[in-house]
């Protein structure tokens, strides 16, 4: 299918560099993840990881905040950052020749941030603004509520924190958090694009090789909450999220579930799009996707629809989920396979997308998968296998989160709405 050159190298301190050599491109991208996500935040200071992610980018080594940003600008780097649940992510895409200079700046930022006291309140304001803006994003707000309830603590924790928790965080907290969490063990540097692997490993070794590993911190665990939950809000539409058990990458049934959910939601001929939108005109947006943390997974279906049609929309979604348990057809699977193959091949046109994919592979599986292997995993699946899987694991035990004027009723359709095990 492709010209593939995947490489990986693990340093003694636990840092791994993974690469996809794409010599047909003139660009390169990297995705760095540090095991410093919000799951490690103190319970009364949730948002620390996100605040720290903001603050490390305010100067490092001998560069102040402005010099740091300008150095990136002069290299033409398109950078991104976000604090997730397990990891904090730093991404960059650039003209291939600027890869090494860009990595040098990132190394300074990760290892030697200044965390300037005089910018602490500015950084805090940025975090508070993010929280405020999320309040206006109703679909995301409903989805965050679903994840928090479905996964429990710490997997379901949202990294933004609250106004109260952000207000409690001190500079000392951020320094301690950086000191204990920013570490080479568990860290992944995924690079894709046009680069020289030997030189890259050598450079990363010089930048990070002498960084000492540190113990992984303890994490507090709280159980999930299930059933139905409604967030009252005077909005035009009701935002509906239905959740049920999903599968992680490392689970042997992952691809069977991927196919089942694909039939439900991938493409314009998928069941949800056809039944909810095309035939009944109930909504503009409807989809389902398999979301995962490292050890848990959930399938979350979303639709947003006007208040007076929300109950019908939920009923049709549930009906389709239950119907999926009765199996899929050969033509549905065939369409899905070509769709996935097409998507995999087009990934080769984007170094950014490949950098993120191989980072995720290493995080979830501890190994890299070629695009051929990924294609093979899907193309070898038969309808009987998917249907056997669906008999064993029919979509059931639904959780519901709604946001809007009125709560909705999760009708059983013969399916027990008991809590998730």
């Amino acid at each position, binding site marked *: 299918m492709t010209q593939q050159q995947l490489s990986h190298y693990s340093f003694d301190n636990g840092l791994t560099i993974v690469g996809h050599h794409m010599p047909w491109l003139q660009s390169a991208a990297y995705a760095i993840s540090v095991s410093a996500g919000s799951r490690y935040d103190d319970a009364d200071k949730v948002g620390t990881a996100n605040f720290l992610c903001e603050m490390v980018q305010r100067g490092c080594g001998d560069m102040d905040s402005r010099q740091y940003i300008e150095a990136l600008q002069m290299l033409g780097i398109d950078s991104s950052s976000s604090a997730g649940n397990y990891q904090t992510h730093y991404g960059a895409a650039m003209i291939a020749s600027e890869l090494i200079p860009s990595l040098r700046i990132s190394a300074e930022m990760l290892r030697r941030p200044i965390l300037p006291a005089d910018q602490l309140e500015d950084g805090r304001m940025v975090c508070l603004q993010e929280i405020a803006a999320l309040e206006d994003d109703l679909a995301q707000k409903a989805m965050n509520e679903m994840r928090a309830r479905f996964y429990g603590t710490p997997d379901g924790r949202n990294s933004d924190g609250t106004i109260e928790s952000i207000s409690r965080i001190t500079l000392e907290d951020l320094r301690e958090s950086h000191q204990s969490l920013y570490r080479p063990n568990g860290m992944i540097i995924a690079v894709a694009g046009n680069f020289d692997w030997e030189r890259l490993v050598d450079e990363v070794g010089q930048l990070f090789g002498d960084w000492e590993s540190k113990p992984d911190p303890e994490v507090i665990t709280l159980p999930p909450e299930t059933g139905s939950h409604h967030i009252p809000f005077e909005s035009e539409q009701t935002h509906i999220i239905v959740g049920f058990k999903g599968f992680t990458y490392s689970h042997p049934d992952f691809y069977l579930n991927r196919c089942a959910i694909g039939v439900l939601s991938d493409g314009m001929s998928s069941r949800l799009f056809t039944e909810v939108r095309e035939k009944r005109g109930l909504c503009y947006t409807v989809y389902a996707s398999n979301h995962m943390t490292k050890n848990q997974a959930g399938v979350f279906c979303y639709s947003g629809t006007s208040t007076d049609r929300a109950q019908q929309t939920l009923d049709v979604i549930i009906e389709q989920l239950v119907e999926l348990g009765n199996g899929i057809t050969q033509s549905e699977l065939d*369409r899905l396979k070509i769709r996935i193959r*097409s998507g995999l091949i087009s990934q080769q046109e984007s170094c950014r997308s490949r950098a993120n994919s191989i980072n995720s592979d290493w995080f979830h599986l501890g190994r890299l998968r070629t695009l051929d292997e990924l294609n093979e995993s899907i193309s070898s699946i038969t309808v009987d296998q998917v249907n056997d899987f669906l008999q064993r694991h029919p979509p059931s035990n639904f959780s519901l989160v709604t946001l809007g004027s009125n709560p909705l009723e999760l009708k059983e359709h013969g399916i027990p709405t008991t809590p998730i095990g």
Partner: protein
Amino acid sequence: MEYRQHRLANGLEIHAECNDLAYTSGFGFFVKAGSRDETDGIGGVSHFLEHMVFKGTPNRTAAEVNLQLDEMGSASNARTGEESTIYHASVLPEFQSDVVALLSDIMRPSLRLEDFETEKKVIVEEIMMYADQPPYGGYERIMEEFYGDHPMGQSVLGTVDSVTGLTPEAMRSYFEQRYSPSNMVLAAAGKIDFDKLVDDVERHCGRWKSFPAERTCPAPDYRSGFVSMHKPNSVQQYLLQMAPGATLQSEDRYAARVATTIMGDDAGSRFYWEFLDSGLAESAGVGSYEHLGCGSLMTVICCDPSKAEENLERAKKLFNQAASEGVTEKELAMAKRKIASHILLASERTDTRMFSVGTQWLNDQPFKTPAQIAEVYENVTLDEVNAALQKYHMRSPMTLAVGPKEDWLAV
């Protein structure tokens, strides 16, 4: 890489950037039909028609269109704007003929009544979805306030009332004014068998009848002022400002774009340091939007309602300062590096190449490769950027504030 063109007898043009090394093939019909072409009583028809195009033809039902697009594993979609409607699909090269046959077929839709009524409900849901999302219809409102009676002020989505009132006959009549083969292009990029493409398009589209598709292009009469849309249950305040900007015909439109990058890009710009680094706003940016015969400079700020008034003052001060003192060589160099890098990264994707080919045709511009476009930006001088900053300015903008804030004192 080879740029090839073909023109059918009925006026339909095919423009393709053929790249034998590409992994995928992208195709798109670009039609000069958008909300600015709508007359009274048919508000939202361009966008509704875009939906109806997927609802079947004399040869295919709506379900068959969806099914076949998926059978090819296509990544397909459509979009409608003020000046254009675009239908596009990316596929593996082996599906070139199939996807061209399908896209060509749906460009002559049936507009069946039953599909029309069902899809109308989807459009109403889409309008309501945007009504729940920031800036809560603010973009449509400021376009209307800024452009006044000019056709650019007409909303792409239309309103629940205007869409509810539409009939298949009115849509058919609109179609027959805009979807002439001479008023559209088939753009292609990636791995393309061009000779085959021409054969296929001649066969599928050669019989389409051509008719005149004029576009009225009155001179803009830009308006300024202040409008508040009170939205009590939103948390943030959304501030939109518009002022006259470069048009598609302006010689200085590239300089104007460099100027907006320096002023309002999402990293390292003057807006970035003023608003984002400080946390005075959640987001803040400046953009240049060029259209046929008119154009705008637009700023969007999302912030705490209590900071709204002072942030408007800050934005004004930044524009004044840039106009009076100019920007620096260093800022210009950073903006150029950023633009060059952005152009390179975008150029590696087949779908963005297809959009570039189609958009350049829509804008009546001679085709430029990414390298040629990068060169135009590279040649922009500091004097040209400073001149653009003086010419395109927020001296007396149209300002729209959307959010919970009610007591506007200083404005």
